């Protein structure tokens, strides 16, 4: 028994060393996940836990935008619709029907997915900027309808008085953090699978993808549904964490936040938007906690985004990734940038300047004196 336990432990350690610790990005991801889970044990500060829980919720939201916009190329400006649909559905069903928060989250995700399919269906024929600007409309239409029926939706104040998921603060944090890790991993796995590859193809050249026998409308609808489902879960978690849902969950501002986080972190990576949220959200909250900066929070946020983009137009994580990892020229696998050879196939990673050849250069194949050679273009 003890023998087999130690065997598994040793095997886990070998796997960890050979698959995770060899790459700086994987090491950082592991440390980050461990840090999130250990945080409440290290510091039980209510403010910190609250900020980190909100960060986790928005990380799911931003990552779900990336699946739709970065991979499938359906750059949605109305992603808040799915967040808001999840938030309002779970809030209203728990308040009006008194169902459990967990079932409310499932319902919220279902309604958000349905909204995703509906929006995707309406936008199937649109592309590029038309699609972006048309999707911007849907959350605003929903918001207008909610405002027109204030007795059910609470109008501008929204609905409040929800139960939280758990009574204890730490349990709430763990629920959200674990949900975030699971959802982001799921989104990443989906994006890394054959499905994600098809989405890449659709984004790069939809006509060619269709010509290769891919049912592009079905894949686009699936991307809308999956992305909306994740955003809806984030919205429902938000509603139960904030114990209410308001018009801010449907506003243009929140839709644009997804775009900013996504592009700031680097599109078509899934981890990029997550990194962006984990950098920008706590940073703005921390700056906002100073009274001198409180009013300037959004201003500083915008300036940081603008300046970082001027230097890293492809986003934050691709820039960092290129600094710490090099793709192998032969097998395309990533290796740490400081290695001399590829960790998978052993080929030399960096172009080493060849030592000066001892022998004189071989004679040119064509005689430079012949007319044919002189007529060649330089």
């Amino acid at each position, binding site marked *: 028994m003890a023998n087999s336990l130690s065997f598994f432990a040793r095997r886990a350690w070998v796997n960890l060393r050979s698959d995770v610790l060899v790459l700086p990005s994987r090491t950082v991801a592991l440390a980050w996940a461990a840090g999130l889970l250990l945080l409440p044990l290290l510091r039980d500060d209510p403010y910190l836990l609250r900020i980190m829980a909100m960060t986790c919720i928005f990380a799911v939201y931003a990552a779900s935008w990336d699946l739709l916009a970065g991979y499938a190329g359906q750059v949605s400006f109305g992603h808040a619709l799915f967040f808001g649909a999840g938030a309002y559905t779970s809030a209203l069903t728990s308040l009006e029907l008194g169902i459990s928060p967990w079932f409310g989250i499932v319902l919220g995700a279902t309604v958000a997915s349905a909204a995703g399919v509906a929006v995707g269906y309406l936008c199937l024929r649109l592309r590029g900027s038309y699609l972006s600007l048309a999707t911007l409309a849907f959350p*605003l239409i929903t918001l207008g309808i909610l405002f027109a029926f204030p007795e059910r939706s609470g109008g501008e104040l929204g609905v409040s008085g929800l139960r939280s998921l758990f009574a204890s603060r730490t349990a709430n944090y763990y629920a959200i953090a674990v949900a975030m890790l699971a959802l982001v991993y799921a989104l990443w796995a989906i994006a890394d699978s054959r499905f994600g590859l098809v989405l890449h193809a659709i984004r790069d050249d939809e006509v060619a993808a269709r010509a290769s026998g891919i049912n592009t409308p079905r894949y686009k609808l699936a991307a809308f549904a999956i992305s909306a489902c994740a955003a809806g879960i984030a919205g429902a978690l938000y509603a139960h964490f904030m114990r209410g849902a308001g018009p801010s969950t449907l506003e*243009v501002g929140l839709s644009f936040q997804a775009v900013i986080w996504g592009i700031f972190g680097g*599109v078509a990576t899934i981890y990029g938007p997550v990194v962006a949220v984990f950098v920008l959200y706590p940073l703005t909250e921390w700056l906002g906690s100073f009274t001198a900066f409180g009013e300037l929070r959004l201003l500083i946020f915008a300036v940081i985004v603008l300046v970082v983009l001027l230097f890293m137009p492809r986003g934050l994580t691709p820039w960092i990734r290129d600094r710490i990892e090099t793709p192998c020229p032969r097998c395309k696998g990533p290796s740490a940038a400081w290695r001399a050879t590829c960790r998978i196939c052993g080929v030399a990673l960096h172009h080493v300047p060849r030592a000066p050849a001892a022998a004189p250069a071989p004679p040119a194949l064509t005689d430079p004196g012949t007319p044919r050679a002189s007529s060649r273009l330089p």
Partner: protein
Amino acid sequence: MLQDILITGLVNGGVYALLAMGFSLIFGVARIVNVAHSAFYMLAAYCLYTLLTYTGMGMGLASLASVAAVTALSLLCYRFFIEPVRQHESAVLIATIALGLIFQELMLRLFGGHYLGIPNALEGVVTLLGVTIPYQRLLILVIAGASLAAVWFVLHRTRLGLAIRATANDLEVANLMGMDVRTVAMATMAISVALAAVAGVSVAPVFVVDPFMWLAPLVTVLAVVVLGGLGSLKGSLIGALVIGYVEAITVFLLPQGAFLKGAVALSIMVVVLLARPEGLYGVAFEEER
């Protein structure tokens, strides 16, 4: 009621046309979705307020100065924040979002979040077909009409306009024909923002001035431009009138109209897009492949 709808729709349509034309121009020439477009409209209103309150300039002079100042500012923003990232479409997009947010927050810091009022340029009302119209609204209409005519003149009767239309039509060929595409883009940005600033200056006395006044027109303008067809000026004009009238009809006829006007206008846009994915007058871009 009918006359109210007719007049309100026409005036709002004129303002939307001013904003949408500029937005459409810069999109057509440089493929920039300038989210900060209506932020320049807000800046012009603030600039006018500042000049009127603190320098004692006349209305006309202050308006001209505001338009000029905002246009110059837009050129600086273009040169330093948009042009360096032109190669990356998504970076341009969030650069403009960030610019809009920066302007909003700066105005919030400088002037506070409360509503500011600007006196009318012309006082008094005129009664037309039994509807009393304040002179200021007529003035907006006249300014909108004159600006649109001026834009038409520049685009169709000058060499610069020819260059702008050629660049919008095919950037690479225009470049090969020896046009300085960069200067054309700068000039288009200037014209586009000048139109937005004219709109801001002329509506400032009618609407209230506050740092968030750019968000509502932004959404409407996006709806107008998509409805009419991205990059099409005729489409923007017709789309602006359609949206202006649809909003007026919703506000006057439906019970919860004021809340629903945006929703109805956007629904019209969605319906049009379902029938014609490239808008009313848009061209389907072949090069999108």
